[in-house]
């Protein structure tokens, strides 16, 4: 009787949750189970569960290829470098923005700074192309105007670490600024007033008050970044270099490798092995860094 009453009370809630439960099952949990095709010789006709089991063969192929090293190095390398840049640039711009008192100017700057974050990577690739196109790009136009030769940007891998870094920061600087600005606003004025009375310079106030107060946010941004160190923004590495094979040395990441192996060369063995490798390592890094974050500050941990 009591159970029946309980059920009557909660049943509507379970039904309300049902569509989402089903969607997450289809979109997230079924693919998790599907990861095991990395251990099979996948044939569409045999399906996910009946393709021949071949153990670690796919991983053998993957890790004996030169690509495995390049994509892992690139994925981790860019992430490490960009985490540092995100913190440094984010704090710097947030500090300047926090100085602006006039509401309308502050809003204007904030609007412009965040704008690139809202644009799709396809459009970003068009913006980059307007600068970098060999024949019609702005940069080569300027070079030629000064009597120099144009540069074939899309054929020389050497330039791309710089180009990708500029594009990435151009797109993400607003995001990082806003995160740091949110915690800057929370720092009490009294610290600065006291420092002013003591005659502390602006620089000293920044290094002695602001940075220490931002430490929890810095730790959060770094650990979130580290947790995702084996992931890359597929759009950035695929669209912006226009999928040019010549640039692979500098632009191939795990995500572009998985995509190319799956969609372009049709090598499901290789791509599923790389995807498995990424999923599992990501899971581990996220757990590890969330654990660290929880140590550092409980309230900032994700779960």
């Amino acid at each position: 009787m009591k159970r029946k009453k309980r059920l009557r009370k909660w049943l509507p809630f379970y039904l309300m949750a049902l569509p989402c439960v089903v969607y997450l099952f289809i979109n997230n949990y079924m693919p998790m189970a599907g990861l095991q095709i990395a251990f099979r010789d996948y044939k569409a006709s045999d399906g996910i569960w009946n393709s021949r089991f071949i153990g670690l063969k796919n991983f053998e192929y993957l890790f004996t290829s030169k690509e495995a090293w390049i994509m892992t190095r690139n994925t981790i390398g860019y992430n490490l470098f960009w985490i540092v840049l995100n913190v440094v640039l984010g704090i710097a711009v947030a500090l300047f923005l926090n100085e602006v008192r006039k509401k309308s100017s502050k809003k204007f700057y904030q609007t412009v700074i965040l704008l690139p974050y809202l644009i799709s990577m396809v459009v970003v690739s068009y913006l980059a192309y307007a600068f970098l196109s060999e024949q019609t790009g702005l940069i080569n136009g300027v070079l030629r105007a000064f009597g120099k030769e144009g540069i074939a940007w899309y054929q020389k891998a050497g330039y791309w670490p710089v180009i990708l870094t500029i594009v990435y920061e151009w797109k993400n600087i607003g995001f990082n600024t806003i995160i740091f600005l949110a915690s800057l606003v929370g720092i009490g004025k009294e610290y600065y007033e006291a420092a002013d009375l003591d005659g502390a310079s602006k620089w000293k106030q920044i290094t002695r008050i602001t940075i220490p107060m931002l430490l929890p946010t810095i730790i959060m941004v770094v650990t979130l970044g580290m947790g995702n160190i084996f992931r890359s923004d597929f759009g950035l590495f695929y669209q912006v270099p226009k999928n040019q094979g010549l640039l692979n040395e500098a632009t191939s990441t795990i995500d572009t490798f998985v995509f190319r192996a799956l969609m372009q060369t049709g090598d499901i063995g290789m791509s599923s092995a790389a995807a498995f490798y990424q999923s599992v390592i990501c899971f581990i890094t996220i757990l590890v860094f969330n654990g660290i974050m929880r140590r550092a500050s409980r309230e900032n941990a994700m779960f």
Partner: protein
Amino acid sequence: MKRMKRRKKNRFLVLSHVVLIFLSICLAAPFLLLIISSFTEESMAVKYGYSFFPKGWSLDAYRYIMGNLPLFGKAYLITILVTVTGVIAGLLIASLMAYTLSRKGLPGGRLLMYYVIFTMLFNGGLVATYINYVQVFHIKNTYLALLAPNLLCNAFSIVMLKNYFQFSIPGDLGEAAQIDGASELGIFFKVVLPLSKPILATVALIVGLAYWNDWQNGLYYLDDTAMHGIQNVLNDMNSNAKYLMQFAGGRGASIPTTTVRMAIAVVGILPVLVVYPFFQEYFAKGITAGAVKG
């Protein structure tokens, strides 16, 4: 002494403005170049390249787009419809789940929460997702492919909504309605949702932006370019240099391809450029909330 201090303070304020103005120019310049390029005369763009100060202006690129309205209009319509459908359906599914999660004493509530959170920690990746949707659910080359994979509803928006329902809406409001004989679903739609407009707007903007900007689902699941939305049309032009030629109707040489590319990109970001400044705070709030607190 005091005056000196104030002057010093002013100096930092001036420096801030200088840096921020310079930064704003750098960040906005690519957009400006894109827009100017789309209004550049084709022959000048070909000869001198894209420039902030073109030697000739023209509307030819936009005339070409208008002349091929069936193609570009359809792509635009697809993007709009997918975005609207996705936002409504996604918001509904996520907020229903979030409302359930926000109820105190729900048997199995913790388990349900883990079910949601776990999707943030572990995912099957592209290959398994692709095979799942193509082999099991057969969504290849259907419009469902633009709606379903990954974008519809995610743990971040569920948690954001749940926190709002839990902490920003007085619980006794629901109880009062219950005494009046309203059903749970009725309370949700008539009491809870109307009180949650700020968070619904934030989540709707984030989800809507994700749909508007998406090209990956179209790239993975739609081989038929006639089904492509505006972002995928842009992608098609990137990957196929002759893409525009097929709509020329036999006058291939006269298509102003150099500037049309840019014009289509302008059309693609126009809604974002127009809508965004008005909802800037919602965007900023949603983006940081999603990042800071899962």
